[in-house]
């Protein structure tokens, strides 16, 4: 039996399975994308017209009014400003702190290397829980300030371990020769290890940035009363929760459509909130996947 004959006798079950693969993946893509695209379409549709329903992938009555309304809302601007600011500040400080710590624990000859690692690994498994943490931040005077967004989470054991694993792969001889030339540890960190660790820096910076961009719980828990420190996600959450309360009390969502924020406005805020991530993640995803695999190896 030659190769060709063999190919012809492909079992019928394989054809059926092939059809299943195509249908499954088609449905998967549709179910993943449709709700997102539908939200985008709604955000460009006239608000009153949208209540009738029947808007799918394209707006029926095109209107930019939703976005005009959203961009005229002061709290959205404040939220956007704080969200950008916290993302930038936290990414820079947290990246630096984690990198420096990872550098220290990855020095093979450092005398307290294993104790320091253990000290941080433990924090991954035990934590005080919501209330002790809340009281701590309150006592430290962090609640009601912008600093609550970047100070408490500055060092994270997971991010540190990802970086440590990477730095451990850098040949020790580089460090030794620099030391012979009289370089101190900070110089080695700044001029030798950091330039070589750029890929893992990018990965961790992205982890932190996306985490910061998407956070809402800290804004709600610690800065509820401080409208000047609100975030975009939290503003969206407030819009959403007012609707949830409505749908929980009125039996028909249609009747309450006039009293709550129109669905199209919510759609516009949703799109504005996710836009930066949707635009950027396809280019950055390989860094995330790298981080996942490095982190996974170490687990």
């Amino acid at each position, binding site marked *: 039996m030659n190769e060709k004959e063999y190919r012809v006798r492909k*079992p019928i*079950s394989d054809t059926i399975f*092939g059809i*299943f*693969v195509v249908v499954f*993946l088609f449905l*998967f893509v549709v*179910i*993943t*994308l449709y*709700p*997102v695209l*539908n939200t985008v379409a709604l955000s460009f549709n006239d608000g009153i017209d949208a209540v009738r*329903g029947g*808007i*799918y992938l394209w707006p029926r009555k095109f209107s930019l009014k939703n976005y005009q309304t959203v961009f005229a809302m002061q709290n959205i601007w404040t939220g956007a400003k704080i969200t950008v600011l916290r993302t930038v500040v936290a990414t820079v400080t947290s990246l630096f*702190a984690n990198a*420096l710590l990872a550098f*220290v624990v990855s*020095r093979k*000859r450092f*005398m*307290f290397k294993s104790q320091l690692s253990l000290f941080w690994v433990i*924090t991954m498994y035990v934590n*005080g*829980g*919501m*209330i*002790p*943490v*809340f009281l701590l931040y309150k006592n*430290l005077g962090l609640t009601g300030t912008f600093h609550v967004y970047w100070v408490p989470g500055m*060092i994270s054991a997971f991010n540190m371990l990802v970086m440590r694993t990477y730095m451990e792969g850098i040949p020790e001889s580089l460090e030794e020769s620099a030391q012979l030339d009289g370089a*101190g540890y*900070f110089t080695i960190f700044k001029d030798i290890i950091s330039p070589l660790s750029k890929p893992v820096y990018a990965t961790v910076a992205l982890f932190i940035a*996306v985490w910061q*961009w*998407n956070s*809402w*719980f800290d804004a709600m*828990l610690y800065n509820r009363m401080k409208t000047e420190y609100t975030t975009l996600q939290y503003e*969206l959450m407030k819009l*959403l*929760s007012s609707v*949830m*309360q409505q*749908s929980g*009390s009125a*039996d*028909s*969502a*249609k009747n309450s459509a006039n009293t709550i924020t129109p*669905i199209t406005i*919510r*759609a516009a*805020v*949703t799109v504005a*909130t996710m836009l930066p991530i949707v635009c950027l993640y396809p280019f950055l*995803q390989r860094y995330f996947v790298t981080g*996942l695999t490095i982190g996974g190896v170490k687990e």
Partner: protein
Amino acid sequence: MARDKTRKKMDMKATLKEMKHQKFLIGVSLVVVVYGIIFYYWPLTGWLMAFQNYKPKNGIFGSKFVGLDKFRFLFEDEVFIKVIRNTFAMGVINLVTTTIMAVLFAIVLNEVRRAWIKKPIQTISYLPHFLSWIVVTSILHVSLSSTGIINDLLMRFGFIDQAINFFAHPKYFWPIVAFANCWKETGWNAIIYLAAITAIDPALYEAASIDGADRLQKIRYITFPGIKPTFLILLLMNVGNVLNAGFEVQYLLGNGLVQSVSQTIDIYVLKWGISQNDYSLGTAAGLFKSAVSIAIIVIANSIAKKYSEQRLF
């Protein structure tokens, strides 16, 4: 004796010299240890509050100890019993559905040979992972609203006459949460399984083909055993998180009408501890959750030890 002494002295000297040489490393360590003690270790003392009648003005070390009173109150509270059930049920349902979906998606995607189809699908599958739960629930809310696609399709095919208000009936809540979790994480969770499948020796598939196995048989007898270690390790890691899986989506989608099925331990902690200022009761509920989580991990690990080579510790 004298020799030993000098040796010790020399050792000390060497250590001191090494310490001086490593002063930068030691300095950084000290700073981060202080930071870690403040932000990670200090809150652990807060567990004491669970056994006290904590009053903020007295502090942790000045409040009166009341033994297990707070726990007694918890277990006499019917709401808390329901909350435990909800947390467990949703945790288990989510773990099972997301795992099945991730394995299924990884296996199916692996059957696609052409990279120009496979790559875009995989990129699309990651998208929801990067969106916040707020955005996800907002999008979901649109799809499930009275004018959303689900009601639209159901009415169009004549299954229902009137739009269903999905968020007003307790029976829909758990499935909605499970779906939301699958929607958000399937593509991302599948990454590890895809990596595991890629690591399987292709010669096994070739040999199976020659023996006349069809694609389903190859999946059953080669792919499944190939990803089993990964599957078990992830399962072990995730069972300990079963009770942690219930906060954001339940908090965001819950409302008065579905409260009986939507409230989880974390929401209960938030409600009693932060909103009602009963810090001790909130902490007791949180402590109960942590203790059960640790017990689950230990039990799962010992079961795994007994029946297979996979274990966490």
